[in-house]
């Protein structure tokens, strides 16, 4: 039951993008069509889950026993960068088309603050290993869901008759704001 709360909480109530406002760069950058949004969501899911769990391992097995917690941010960034590099290598091997459509946004997952943010949040919330795994996965699923919803909206917006002044990114930002308000409505769920 506890786990269900964490999943619901991360996917809907405390959604990384729309409620905590982390990871807005890929949210605006790679949401132009649904297939790339799904690809980006899956790549970020892998990175987020891996970095949240390895962050937990490093915190509890290395940093805490040696009293080196002040190195948390630095080591987490190191791990995130390595995981992203690995994801990039893996994607390049397995799906050349996805690799090319994600382009520069793939290495930029390193600087996606959602990834580092979630890893740091799991430590702050004092989760167990399984809880932090689920927390990381839930946040990643929340990110992917929002990416897909937003990409679908933007695909429709691109053929809609938007006033010239608002077409493109401005109407995208307004849509993101409305979507964020909708997600705030999940607030009382958990």
């Amino acid at each position, binding site marked *: 039951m506890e786990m269900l709360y964490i999943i619901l909480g991360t996917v809907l109530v405390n959604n990384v993008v729309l409620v905590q406002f982390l990871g807005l760069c890929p949210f605006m950058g790679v949401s132009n069509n649904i297939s790339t949004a799904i690809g980006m969501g899956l790549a970020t899911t892998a990175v987020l889950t891996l970095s949240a769990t390895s962050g937990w391992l490093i915190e509890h097995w290395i940093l805490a026993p040696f009293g080196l917690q002040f190195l948390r941010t630095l080591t987490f960034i190191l791990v995130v960068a*390595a995981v992203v590099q690995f994801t990039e*290598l893996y994607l390049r091997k397995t799906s050349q088309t996805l690799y090319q459509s994600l382009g520069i946004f793939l290495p930029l997952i390193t600087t996606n603050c959602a990834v580092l943010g979630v890893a740091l949040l799991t430590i702050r919330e004092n989760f167990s290993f399984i809880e932090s795994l689920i927390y990381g996965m839930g946040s990643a699923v929340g990110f992917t869901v929002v990416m897909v919803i937003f990409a679908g909206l933007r695909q429709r917006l691109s053929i809609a008759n938007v006033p010239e002044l608002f077409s493109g990114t401005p109407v995208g930002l307004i849509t993101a704001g409305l979507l964020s308000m909708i997600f705030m409505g999940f607030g009382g769920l958990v």
Partner: protein
Amino acid sequence: MIGAILLLTLMGLILGTALGYAAKAFHVEGNPLVEEVSQMMPGTQCGQCGFAGCTPAAEAIVNGDAEVTCCPPGGTSLAASLAKKLGIDIKLDSLQEGVVFAHINSALCTGCTRCYKVCPTDAIVGANKQIHMVINAACTSCRRCVEACPENCIDMLPEQATLDTWYWPKPKAA
């Protein structure tokens, strides 16, 4: 203090080694020519060529989508070595002549207005059946007017020195 240094060194070593092996395990056979060309590029990823970085630019150059002269930091030496590598003829003289501007030979100009219609920066002034002239400050040396002129009366020339633009010649190398 020592522990922190040791920890970071160890983590760097472990992650670096793991990534190195992963890079070998997931190695993708790319076009070897692209890799060679991207090795020759400056590698600063400055993006002045209009591509996202040096590797995409190298791909475009190999595919023929971009000129070998598209890299400003690489300059003429890079253009020359790329041209040699890819077997392309480029006129290096045209790269070395410095800044040139369109110049309309007024003896031949018929005032057909074709050159100023193609000028992207409105650097050519004139009217129908009036001799045109070029405003150097607005000319970007794109050479579109040279192609458009039916009289072949436009040349690309260095700016005529005036008191404002003349400078001492550089000392000759010994």
